[in-house]
């Protein structure tokens, strides 16, 4: 290692040694990642619920709009009477 590299290494080490962290850092970070995880799960659950409600709504609308003698689920002639 050259003297320039040694001087840079020493300067970086000294400056870095002056940096300290706050005592409650772990609790703060832990509560942050737990909050984000809760929010992520809530979003996933809300999206899943929205998809189920939307498909149910569409199905009910389609059934409601159909004439009683029309088969809207099985259109294959083999399934008709």
């Amino acid at each position: 290692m050259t003297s320039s590299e040694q001087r840079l290494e020493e300067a970086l080490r000294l400056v870095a040694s002056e940096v300290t962290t706050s005592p409650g850092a772990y609790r703060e970070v832990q509560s942050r990642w737990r909050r984000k995880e809760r929010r992520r799960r809530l979003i996933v659950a809300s999206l899943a619920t929205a998809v189920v409600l939307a498909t149910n709504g569409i199905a009910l609308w389609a059934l409601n709009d159909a004439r009683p003698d029309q088969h809207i689920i099985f259109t294959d002639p083999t399934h008709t009477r």
Partner: protein
Amino acid sequence: MAPVSEDLPDTVEALAARDADREAALAGLFHRHHLELVRLATLLGAESDAEDVVADAFCELHRGWKRLRSEQAALPYLRAVIVNRVRMRVRHLQVVRKHVEWVREDVASAESQAMVRDDQRALVAALRSLPERQREALVLRYWLGLKEAEIAEAMGISAGAVKAHTARGMAKLGKVLEGQDD
């Protein structure tokens, strides 16, 4: 080695056990490396946001834990996220500083830098004025003591590019050091 809960089917108990394993692994990583990572973020130019940058990196690791190749990949992943986030922050600050009058914030307060000599402070200031890739390569090489391949992984570039950035950065700092010697 993967924890036992990884092999279990997705039952409520298995998911809870996986969450507990992840929390325990993250707690261990945090206690072993948090200070070192905050110092890395500071040296890269995160200034007073260093702890916040590191906290965000841990949150990102928590979210992407399942995608890690192994637990050994967690620390390089954290370094890469920190390098990336500090780069984004420095770019954002450069834009802000073009529009508002800004008083320079040093790595630490003047009082706390009492132990750092003037020439060393000048050297670190010169380091911080280097282009971001050169600064990152030098900090990762000479402060963390990483190998070229590890630096390349953290910076998201090739090992050859790391070599080039380190050489160019050292050449520029060499001029500052020559000036100090005269």
